[in-house]
């Protein structure tokens, strides 16, 4: 219909605009739809399934190593008993909870971040590379909704990884080794300053808490990857950049030569997740480093969202 008179045009336009409530409902509806679509894509992606499969493989290797080590140290052929009369490595020490603890701590720093970076790095850049980003943004959803729904899937995947891994370790540990109290000693895991113990019932809950704190810590890597995913049009570039930054800081933070730089690395702050596995969690430290991780997550998301909102989509 051709509108010629100004008053008629205004009247007609106003009648076409949805009511404010309708806008709100429509936005919510759009967001829910977007989340459903992203969840579907996540569920169908090969990397999603691969991440769980690799974790199962890791647990199998851990189990093998743990079992042979425990047998070597406490079995009939144990040599240490001759050389060292006093050791805390006894049959009760090698139980399912100790297995779960070692497995979780060893995998957290170098295995989990790879999967988080893979998922997050491919979110925006993957769509750009596939040529679907422009089409996606033609639909009546805002860029912010697209961005946030994608990050929500990264968070969901991260939590599922943590929960699956902790659950699998606890289950296998329980079935094959049984539970006893979780004994902690200063040194190898760097969890305590003096020998301590967590009762088995409490220890299981501590692992449950660790799924949340671990997710929060890993979301820093996820936020870095989302930021890179917005900057680059290639998912490989986004993932490799994220992992390079992470591994570089992780390694530098491990070398005594760079000790003074360590407090400025997000990899140092991410370590707060393990505090819930200490006999007496240091709550001030926990909240301090947890907050710093939160600042990294929200700061990076804000920056990435701003760039994405203004970005000229050419692919």
């Amino acid at each position, binding site marked *: 219909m051709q509108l010629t008179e100004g008053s008629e045009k205004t009247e007609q336009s106003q009648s076409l605009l949805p009511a404010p409530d309708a806008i709100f409902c429509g936005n919510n509806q759009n967001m829910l739809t977007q989340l459903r679509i992203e969840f579907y894509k996540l569920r169908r992606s090969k990397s999603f399934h691969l991440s769980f499969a690799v974790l199962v493989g890791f647990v199998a290797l851990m189990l093998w190593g743990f079992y042979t080590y425990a047998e070597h140290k406490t079995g009939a052929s144990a040599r240490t008993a001759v050389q*060292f009369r006093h050791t*805390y490595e006894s049959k009760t020490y090698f139980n399912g909870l100790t297995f779960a603890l070692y497995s979780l701590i060893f995998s957290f720093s170098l295995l989990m971040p790879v999967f988080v970076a893979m998922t997050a790095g491919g979110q925006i850049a993957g769509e750009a590379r596939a040529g679907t980003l422009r089409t996606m943004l033609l639909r009546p959803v805002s860029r912010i909704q697209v961005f946030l729904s994608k990050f929500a899937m990264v968070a969901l995947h991260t939590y599922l990884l943590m929960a699956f891994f902790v659950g699998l370790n606890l289950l296998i540990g329980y079935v094959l080794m049984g539970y006893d109290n979780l004994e902690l000693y200063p040194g190898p895991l*760097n969890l305590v300053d*003096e020998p301590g113990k967590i009762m088995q019932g409490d220890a299981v809950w501590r692992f449950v808490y660790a799924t949340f704190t671990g997710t929060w810590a890993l979301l820093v890597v996820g936020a870095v990857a989302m930021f890179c995913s917005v900057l680059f049009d290639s998912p490989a570039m986004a993932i490799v950049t994220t992992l390079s930054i992470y591994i570089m800081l992780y390694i530098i933070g491990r070398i005594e030569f760079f*000790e003074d730089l360590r407090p400025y690395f997000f990899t140092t702050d991410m370590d707060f997740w393990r505090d819930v596995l200490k006999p007496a969690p240091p*709550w001030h430290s926990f909240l301090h480093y947890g907050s710093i991780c939160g600042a990294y997550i*929200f700061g990076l998301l804000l920056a990435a*969202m701003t760039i994405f909102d203004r970005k000229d989509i050419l692919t």
Partner: protein
Amino acid sequence: MLARVTLCVLFLACVLGALRFNPFRDRSLLGMHPSDGPRVRLMTWNIGYAGIEGDNRAHDSDLAVVAGAILRTDPDAVALQELASPDQLQVLLGYLYHRYSGSICQFGAADRIEAVLVKDQSARFEDIRAGDKYSLASTFKIGTDQSAKHQVVLVSAHADAFNSARRRLFTSDVIEWAQDRPETDVVFIAGDFNFELNPEKQSNLFTDNAKNDSESYSYILKYFRDLGRDAGWTAINDRRIDYIFGPPEAALLRRAQVLKDAGAPGMDHCPLLVEVAL
């Protein structure tokens, strides 16, 4: 817009949270409450040098500085490590105006020896065979009263610097010796144990050093309390490798301090001073 504002608020909340919660507040001094019992002040000090070139044992020229620090802090007994010769003990006792009696252990397989200085002139000294080395124990009384009921034992120990397995054997021998003391003796074990309990401080992650040191340290803590735990680092590179272990219940910690500026230039350890009430 709402999403941006929400993220901004969350970001600011996290920054404020990080500023509000101070991670160092968790650290607290060991429980202390008044005690009327006699006090004993103990010091441990590795007076050797850093570096692998040249003689890194104690230097004669530093003994006056060592004696000065001892006289200023006035400990009842001092455990010294890395003396180069018995003559150094005599020189040191001279610098201390013979207010202390002292002795050294046998050399064993090492090229350096441990010493104990005690104010009590009637103190007894005894060598302890630990691994392939020797440590030295001194048994003395606190106070001038002849009937003083507290008999204190101070062990001066120095574990291997390069091999964690040897440290383990050494530790177990020293602790076993201490366990054999009569129950009336209040035993303190002091010295440079070279435990590396922080994996981040290790230059080589592919060794079992942390495991061995963890077991050694945990074994000591089965029977003793780490009195200098909150006093901070005792050696260069921020390492806490000098310890004074005391009985967990018989002694109340009153003070634990690392004297950072006490040594001469080139020395790689600082003395650890603790005061306990018996």
